[in-house]
């Protein structure tokens, strides 16, 4: 494919934003500013950025616990995100939900269930709404290789397929469910792609360290879905660089393999590509990084200064009425 300069710059910016976001998340966690547990998505940015490059206004998104920074790409204001992560008033639920529940419906975000996979069908339901309205919008439903083993994934996929709903299931295969390697927990090599035929869906496997590979696979499948043909599965192969949560030293795996995967860094790869193809100079790139860095720092400062809600507000948001 031939890409426009703007497209490539946008993609690169989003990769950098997500990378810096995930790094800063670890930093503020280490400073004790995050109440809960965090799951760093460093190294897996291309899966989100590449798929989301196919998005349109009116689409819906069901993201996961990793990387939470994806919500920024989708358009949730950084102030909202960091405030929620720090459990503050200016978060989307005023700090009631927390790091795993950063969300904004007006940007199409459907929310997340910390009880993994219970939310896969939530994306299917949003697909039902789209189908009833008759637009060409779609739903992006992300789930991990580990989560693929849960029953509700099966139920949701079958339902999406029999109802021919506009849903792209994206399996983020970072090869681990906490300490359990995919080959130990999953009976096939490709937990996403190998199961698509069992629902009568098309699928693609893409290189999750190469954002353009992800984009191309996602483009093909989203075009298919937007044309009304029903759901599909995209599987992106990547690797979880850090432990499952911060504090996990990942002693259960070979650190050498991790290092190998780190050399396939999706951000570096893209940087090299846009430099070599002269889409941007090193200076421009520096400026991009600096701007993003500053924006993130500003938001973190904002969130840090945001107040906690008061105990009187604890019952708010339980019911509409």
């Amino acid at each position, binding site marked *: 494919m031939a890409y426009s300069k703007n497209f490539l710059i946008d993609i690169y910016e989003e990769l950098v934003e997500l990378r810096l976001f995930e790094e800063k998340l670890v930093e503020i966690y280490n400073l004790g500013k995050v109440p809960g547990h965090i799951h760093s998505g460093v190294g897996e940015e291309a899966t989100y950025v590449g798929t989301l490059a196919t998005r349109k206004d009116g689409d819906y998104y069901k993201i996961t616990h990793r990387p939470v920074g994806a919500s920024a790409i989708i358009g949730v204001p950084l102030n909202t995100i960091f405030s929620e992560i720090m459990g503050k008033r200016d978060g989307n639920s005023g700090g009631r939900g927390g790091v795993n529940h950063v969300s904004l419906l007006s940007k199409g975000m459907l929310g997340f269930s910390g009880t993994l996979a219970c939310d896969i069908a939530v994306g*299917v339901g949003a697909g*039902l709404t789209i189908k009833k309205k008759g637009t060409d919008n779609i739903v992006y439903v992300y789930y991990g290789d580990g989560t693929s083993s849960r029953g509700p994934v099966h139920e*949701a996929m079958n339902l999406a397929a029999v109802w021919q709903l506009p849903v792209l299931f994206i399996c983020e295969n970072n090869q681990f469910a906490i300490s359990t390697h995919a080959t130990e927990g999953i009976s096939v090599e490709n937990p996403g792609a190998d199961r698509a035929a069992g629902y009568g869906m098309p699928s693609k496997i893409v290189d999750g360290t190469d954002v353009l590979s992800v984009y191309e696979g996602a483009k093909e499948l989203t075009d298919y879905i937007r044309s009304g043909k029903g759901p599909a599965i995209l599987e992106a192969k990547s690797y979880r660089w850090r432990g499952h949560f911060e504090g996990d030293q990942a002693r259960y795996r070979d650190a050498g393999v991790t290092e190998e995967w780190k050399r396939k860094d999706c951000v570096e790869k893209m940087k090299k590509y846009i430099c070599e193809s002269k889409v941007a100079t090193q200076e421009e790139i520096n400026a991009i990084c600096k701007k993003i860095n500053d924006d993130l720092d500003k938001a973190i400062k904002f969130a840090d200064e945001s107040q906690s809600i008061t105990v009187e507000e604890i019952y708010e948001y*339980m019911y509409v009425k």
Partner: protein
Amino acid sequence: MLVTYGQAIGDAIKEEMRNDENVIIFGEDVAEMGNIFGITKGALEEFGHDRVKNTPISETAIIGSAIGAAITGLRPCVELMYSDFALVAFSELFHCVGKWRYMHGPEYKLPLVVRSAMGSSFGAGAEHSNCVESLFMHATGLIIVSPSTAYDAKGLLKTAIRSDDPVLFFEHKQLYQTKENIPDDEYTIPFGVADVKREGKDVTIIAVGLMVKKAIEAASILEEKGISIEIIDPRTLVPFDKETVFESIRKTHRVVVVEESNKTAGIGAELAAMIQESMYDELDGPVLRVAALDVPLPYNIALELHCVPDAQKIVTAVEALF
């Protein structure tokens, strides 16, 4: 008009589907068959396959997709055939439906209703007879409705479908064929308003679902024995109308709670605990519970009937208060 409880429910659904085209129904066998009890019969013909959908046997997908449809603008009124099967989607109901808005913020509204048929029905056995309201009372963010009459069922279901908060709506299988005269004109019944099904002065019986009928039978027997019974049907267990109950207790000073599920940690546990906590000085005796025995409901019908409460057991409990 004279309608059955089952018809009243079907009518409520169809009326609301006419009122608002965002109301859709889906669940196992709700379309051509009109659900296994015939409750949604006619909906498919009137509203078509886009709004009346059979689902595969996949309860987690039914609830999950109802959440997704609800937050994006539809008003799904979905069905879990038997309330026993609500337990296979327990996490979706307890963690997701109940907490979604709280965890994600005030943009998120969940105008969804989950209907489910409950209760013993002569040999249906340990997995097709459960009443599970109490399990969901421990959840947060849900509304729980358990109507005992056609009138209540219709008015409450219409409120449920119009509600922006999620509602679990439990229908008792043994009540589907019971008939009642209800208004021709449209009406709704608000949540959190108990109904005094019978006025009396000596003992307050709080009864739910089919047990309201059993309590009425017991009240007749007790009347002959000179004991006057007031029967309160909370109709919605969450929100619970404490005030109506407390007012009755200020008059009777004696309470019996009757439920169909087994006793331990059931509805009666919460109500008895709450009442003695709030009204201790008004009580002339303990709040007694009449409930099923703590066993899986036996298949053998004699044992089943021995297990679930009947009028005689209620009479015995009431008499124990004197």
